[in-house]
C-alpha cells in the first residue's frame, strides 16, 4: 500500500493574463471550480472560460481535506449526486490522463450503540434501493476488513457493527485538482491565480462582470464556487446565503509501514482515518463549534480526536502528529449543498458542501457545468436548489450522516 507517488506531468498549466471578457467566469479555483471549468469545456464546448482564484490554485479546502470518497448517503438526492460522482471517480484517472491515485479500499462507518445500528441498517437499505453498494458488517466482519480496529466488547463504546461501502475509498487531492486544472487549461480555460473578486456587476438583474484585484473582467455568466467564502461573495450582490462558516481541522502522522487497509469513520467515537499512499495516517473529526473564516482551530478538538482514534486503534498510540491544519467549511441548515440558480440572471451558486465537498468534486463539476451551460439545473442537482430553505424541501443529512462526512 505504501508506495512511491507517481510523478506529476512535466507541464501543468499556463499562467495567462486575464482577458477583458469571458463567456463564463468561475469564481474559486478549488476542486469544484476546476472540475466545473473542465466539464464546461469538455461536455458543453464552452471554452471561453476563466477560473479566478484569490490565492493559489486548489489551495483552500481542496488542499486541506482528508480525501475520503464515498456515496453511501441516506437520502435519494444525496445518493444521486454522490453516486454520480463516484462513477466519475472510477474513470477519472483515464479521463484526465492524470494519476489521481483513486484507491477503492472501502469505507467502514462504525456503529457503537443500538441507535447507531438502527441508523446504519436504515442507510444500507436505502443505499441498495438507490443503487449504491452497501453492506452491514458484524464486528467480526469489521475486523476482517480492518484488523487493527479494536472490537473488544469491553471498551467504552464497543463496535457493534458497521456499514461498509467497498467501492468507496480515497484519492490524492492535489493530483485531482491539478488533473482537472491541466485538462481545463489544455481545452483553453484560463486559470487566473492571485486574482481576488472585489465586486460583482449586475445590470437590470443580470450579471455582467466582475471587479477584481487584477482589473475588471466582463462575464456572460458567473459561477460562484468559493466554499467557505461563498457568503462573502454573495453578499456583494445582496444575496444572503444560509451558510455558516466553521473551521474544520485535520492532521497527518509521519510515514508508517502499512497498517490500515481501508477508511474508518465513526460518529459516536468521533474520528475518521485512512492511511494515505505514502504511508501517513490522515485523520479528521468534527468542526470547531465557533464560526470563523480563519484556517485554524482549537487544539481541544484535536486532542479529543486523538482520544477517539486510540479508542478505535490502540496501535496508533506511538504514532506522531506531524502537522495539523484547518480549512473553512460552509455549512447549511440541512447540511446539504446549494447548487443552482440564483435570483440574479447569469449568476449561479455552488456552496454549502460543508465537510463533504471533496468526494463530490467530479459530480458537482459535471452538474454545475450543466446548470451554467443550460441555465437550468441538471436533474441530479435540482433538489439542491437555493429556495428549498424557504419552501422547506430540505435534504437533511444530519440524521444518519451527522457531522463525519
Amino acid at each position, binding site marked *: 500500500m505504501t508506495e512511491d507517488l507517481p510523478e506529476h506531468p512535466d507541464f*501543468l498549466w499556463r499562467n495567462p493574463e486575464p482577458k477583458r471578457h469571458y463567456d463564463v467566469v468561475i469564481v474559486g479555483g478549488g476542486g469544484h471550480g476546476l472540475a466545473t471549468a473542465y466539464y464546461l469545456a469538455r461536455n458543453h464546448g464552452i471554452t471561453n472560460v476563466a477560473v479566478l482564484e484569490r490565492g493559489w490554485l486548489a489551495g483552500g479546502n481542496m488542499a486541506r481535506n482528508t480525501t475520503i470518497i464515498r456515496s453511501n448517503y441516506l437520502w435519494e438526492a444525496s445518493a444521486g449526486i454522490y453516486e454520480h460522482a463516484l462513477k466519475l471517480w472510477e474513470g477519472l484517472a483515464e479521463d484526465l490522463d492524470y494519476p489521481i491515485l483513486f484507491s477503492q479500499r472501502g469505507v467502514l462507518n462504525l456503529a457503537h*450503540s443500538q441507535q447507531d445500528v438502527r441508523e446504519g441498517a436504515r442507510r444500507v437499505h436505502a443505499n441498495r434501493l438507490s443503487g449504491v453498494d452497501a453492506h452491514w458488517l458484524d464486528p467480526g466482519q469489521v475486523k476482517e476488513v480492518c484488523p487493527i480496529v479494536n472490537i473488544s466488547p469491553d471498551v467504552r*463504546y464497543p463496535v457493534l457493527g458497521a456499514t461498509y461501502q467497498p467501492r468507496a475509498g480515497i484519492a490524492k487531492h492535489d493530483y485531482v485538482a491539478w488533473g482537472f486544472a491541466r485538462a481545463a487549461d489544455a481545452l483553453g480555460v484560463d486559470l487566473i491565480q492571485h486574482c481576488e473578486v472585489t465586486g460583482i456587476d449586475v445590470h437590470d438583474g443580470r450579471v455582467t462582470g466582475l471587479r477584481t484585484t487584477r482589473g475588471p473582467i466582463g462575464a456572460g455568466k458567473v459561477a460562484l464556487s468559493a466554499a467557505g467564502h461563498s457568503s462573502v461573495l454573495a453578499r456583494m450582490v445582496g444575496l444572503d446565503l444560509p451558510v455558516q462558516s466553521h473551521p474544520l481541522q485535520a492532521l497527518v502522522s509521519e510515514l*508508517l*509501514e502499512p497498517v490500515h487497509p481501508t477508511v474508518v469513520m465513526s460518529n459516536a467515537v468521533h474520528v475518521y482515518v485512512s492511511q494515505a499512499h505514502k504511508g501517513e495516517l490522515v485523520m479528521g473529526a468534527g468542526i470547531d463549534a465557533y464560526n470563523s473564516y480563519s484556517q485554524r482551530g482549537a*487544539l481541544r478538538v484535536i486532542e479529543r480526536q*486523538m482520544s477517539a482514534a486510540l479508542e478505535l486503534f490502540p*496501535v496508533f*498510540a506511538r504514532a506522531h502528529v*506531524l502537522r495539523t491544519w484547518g480549512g473553512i467549511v460552509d455549512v447549511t441548515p440541512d447540511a446539504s449543498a446549494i447548487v443552482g440558480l440564483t435570483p440574479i440572471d447569469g449568476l449561479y451558486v455552488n456552496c454549502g458542501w460543508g465537510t463533504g465537498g471533496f468526494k463530490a468534486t467530479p459530480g458537482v463539476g459535471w452538474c454545475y457545468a450543466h446548470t451554467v451551460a443550460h441555465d437550468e439545473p441538471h436533474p441530479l442537482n435540482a433538489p439542491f436548489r437555493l429556495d428549498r430553505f424557504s419552501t422547506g424541501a430540505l435534504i437533511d443529512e444530519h440524521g444518519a450522516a451527522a457531522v463525519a462526512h
Partner: protein
Amino acid sequence: MSGDGLRHATEGRIDRGTVLRFRFDGTAYSGHPGDTLASALLANGVRRIGTSVRLGRPRGVMSAGSEEPTGVVQLEAPFPDPMRPATMVELHDGLVASSLSGRGRLADRPDPARYDAVHAHCDMLVVGAGPAGLAAASLAVRSGARVILADERPEVGGASPDTEGDDWFDRAGARVLTRTTVFGYYDDNYLVAVERRTDHLGAAAPGNLARERIWRIRAGQVVLATGAHERPIAFAGNDLPGVMLADSARTYLHRYGVLVGRRAVVFTINDSGYRVVADLAAAGVEIAALVDPREATGGTVGGQVGGRYGGHVVVAAHGDDAHGHDVLSTVDIEPVGGGPTVRVDADALLVSGGWSPVLHLYSQSGGRLRYDEVVGAFLPDGCRQAVTVAGAARGLTSTTACLVDGVDAARQALTALGITPVDWSPPSVGAGAEGPPPATAAPGGVPDLRFVPAEDYSTHFVDFQRDVTVADVLRATGAGLRSVEHVKRYTTAGTAHDQGKTSGLLTSAVVGQALDAGIAELGHTTFRPPYTPVSFAALAGRDRGQLYDPVRVTAIHDWHVRHGARFEDVGQWRRSWYYPAEGEGLAEAVRRECVAARTGVAFMDASTLGKIEVQGPDAGRFLDRLYTNVMSTLAVGAIRYGVMCGLDGMVFDDGTVARLAPDRFLLTTTTGNAGPVLDWMEEWLQTEWPDLAAWCTSVTDQWATVAVVGPRSRDVLARLAPGLAVDAATFPFMTWRDTVVAGLPARVCRISFSGELAYEVNVAWWHGLALWEAVYEAGAPYGITPYGTETMHVLRAEKGYPIVGQDTDGTVTPQDLGMAWVVSKKKADFIGKRSFARSDTARPDRKHLVGLLPEDPTLLLPEGVHVVDPACLAGGRLPEPPVPMLGHVTSSYRSAALDRTFALALVAGGRDRIGDRLYAPLDDGRLVPVTVAGPVLYDPEGARRDG
C-alpha cells in the same frame, strides 16, 4: 570509520564514568549518560544510519537538534516508537534502535505507558533556554513575575552551551520545564507543550509516571527565544553521511565530547563557520580546507587550516572505493563561477548556509514574517498577540547580543504586564564566547548562496528526508508552478518529519532563481502546529478507555447488575436493556416483562431522563416560546406533555413539563438529549431573549426516578405511600404530588409512557436504591417485574408514542407524527412556528408516522428496511435502482399484547394509506407484504392509562 579516538578526552557534558549499552541495527555499542543516540553513534564511528525513502540513498546525522532531517530511526526497545530523530533520543541503558528507509513501524502490542496533561498559568512564558531565554526569564523572575521557562533539551543553556555557564540564572525562581517542547501557539496566548518525562530513564522509568505530559499554558506575555536553525547548501552529493551542518559539529564537541570526524572541510558562506574551524582545530580535528565563496572573509581563523579557499565553493561530495560509497571520503572544491577542481580528502564536510530564525511558533500565533535581505532569512514583523521575539530568533548572532536582547524583551513584556522590571543585566560573557558578527553582512559578501550552480542538479538535495533535489524544484517551476505552496505539493519538499525546518528557504531560493523572483515576493509556506512531532497518545492523554467518556450510571445500577440485567449505552448513560431470567434471550425476557406491565405490575429505572428546572417570573413565557404548545397556563400541580422543535419546525425533543410553583417548572427531556436541550435553552436565553427573567438548572443527577407501571401499580404505591390518596379522582392522570414513599420524601407524577396506569416516583438521588428496593418488596405479592429499555420501547410503540431520534431523524414535524394537537394555533410565536407555513412543510404527502402490520404476523420486520409502493413493482420484482422509496421502518417488535409482530414507520402520505398493502424488500431478496395501520395499536381510547 572506526570509533577509536572520536571521543574527546575532556570536552562535553557526559558522564564518562558510567557506561550505557545500546544496540543499533543489531550491533552492540556503548555510550555515556548525557549522550544522545546520535552522539553515541557518531562517537562509535557509525555514519550511515538510514536509507532515503524514494531514492534509497545512504543517510547519516546532519544536525544536533530537533531540526534533524535525516538521522531518523526506529526505536525497538524499551517500546517500538517510529521515526525518532536520533539527535533527540537520550541514550539509556538497553536502548535498541534500528535504521529506517523513510517509514516507521507501529508496535503490534498496546502501549503500556501513561500520559497526562496539566493546565498552567503564568505571567510570562519563555520558550527556549539559550542565552536570550535565560536572560529574559532571569529578569522576569528577579522582577517578581510568575515565569515558565521551557526548552526541548535536557538542560538549559541553548544549542551549544558555552562553558562559562549560567550561574546567574535562578532555577528555583521559575518553573523550568526541560525536555519540554512548546509545539503550538493558539489564540489568546494559549500555548501547548509536551514534556518528555520518562524516555531518558529507559527501563528504569517508574511505571506510575506519565511518559509524556501535555502542558496547556495560558501566558500573560510570551517571549520566544527559540533560536535559529543553520541551513544546508545544495551541491552534488550534499546528502552523503559525513556532510553535516557546521555548527552541529561544535555542539557534538562541546555538549557530547564527540569529534564528528578527524579531517574536516568547512564550507561556509557566513562567519559562523569560522568559530567551528577554531573550536574543532583546538580539539585536534584536522581542518583540511576552509571554503568560503566570499573573496574577503570576515575574521581571522583561530586554528591551523590546510587550505583556505576564499572565492570558492564546494561542488561535490563523494564516497570512494576505499571507504565505501555510503560515507564521505572526498570533497571537490572549485572557484566561484567555475575553474579547476581541487579534490580534498575528508571524513566530515561541515556546511553553513546561514541561519534561519525559528519562527514557527511566532507564525502560528498569527505573527507576520518579512524577508530580510541582510540576514538572508525571514524575521518577525508584528503580531496581535502579547509576544516578543528575542535573540537568534530575530536574527541576532552573538551571545552578548542575545543576552542583552533577552533582557530587553523581558523588560518590554514585564512593563506590558504592569510589573516594574528590576535593574539587572547578566554578567558579561567572556570574549571566548563571543559569536561572529551578523551572518552575511560581512564586507565583500557574495549574494546568498543557496545552491551551487551545476549542469546536473539531480543530487543537489534541498529536502533530505523527502529526497527532493534542485532538479525536482526546477521541474515544478517548469511545469508552470509559481507558488511555493504548489512547489511543495509537486515535489513534497517540506512535508516530511522535519516539516522543512532546514529545507524551506532553500526551496524558495531555487524557485526564486528559476522565476527571477525574490524570496520576499514568494513568501513562505504556512507554519502549522506541532513544531515537532507529538505522539497521538500524548494528545489523547488520560481521556482513554473508561475515561474517554465516563459512563454515567444511576443510583440503582448495582441492583441491575446483581439481577443480571443486560445493558445498552444511551448517550453517556448505561441503561438496563432487559433482565433475562435463566435461559431467556432478549425476545423471551421482553415478552415476559411486557406481559407483567400490561397485566400486573412492572417497574423500571427512569433516572436517566433529562431533568431541567426552570425558574423565574418569565419561566412560563420562556417555555411558551420553547415548546410548540402552551405551558404558561399549566396549573401548579399539573403536568403537560410538550414537544420542542428546531427553527426548521422539525421535532428536536419531547418530554413532560410539571409546574411546581407559579415561577417554577420541571422539564423532562429524552436521555440522550438532556445536554443539547439545556444548551439550546441557554442559547436562546443568552443570545436572543436576554430580557427574559428565567434560569435553567440541570437536575438530572439530583432525582432518581422509578416508574411503577401496570394495572396493579396503584396497589403497590398505596402500600408504599399510605399518606397519599391514590384514587383516580383525587390523583388524576397528568398531575403530581409531593408525599412520602417508603419513608422517603418523594414527588410522584402520574404520567405514563406505556399506556398503562403508571406512577413515576422521584426521590433524592441517594435514596434511589432504597426506593427501588422498597418498590420491589411492596410489589412482590403482585409479581412485580423489573424491565429495561427494550420493554419500554415495545410498550410505547404499541401505543404509537414516538421516540425522538428513533422514530424521528430531524426531518419530522409534530404533524408528521400525528400530533398536530400539540402545536398551538393560538400562540403568537414559538420556535419553529414560521417553518410550519412553508409550502413543503405543509405538504399533505409528507412522511407520516404510521403502524405497519406484516401480513405474516410472525414476521419481524428489520428496523431500517424501506417500504415501496406495489405500483413500482414489475412482475412482482423491484425495478432497477434507483427504486422509489415511500419510507422506512423506524421501530419493529413482537407484541405480546397484540399477539403478533408490528412496526412503526415513516411513510409518505402514510395516514392516507391506512389499510393499503405495501412491500418491504428484505436483505435476502424477499418482498414482504405489509398493511398500513394507524400508529396506535393498543388501547386507542386510553382507558387503561387513565384508569
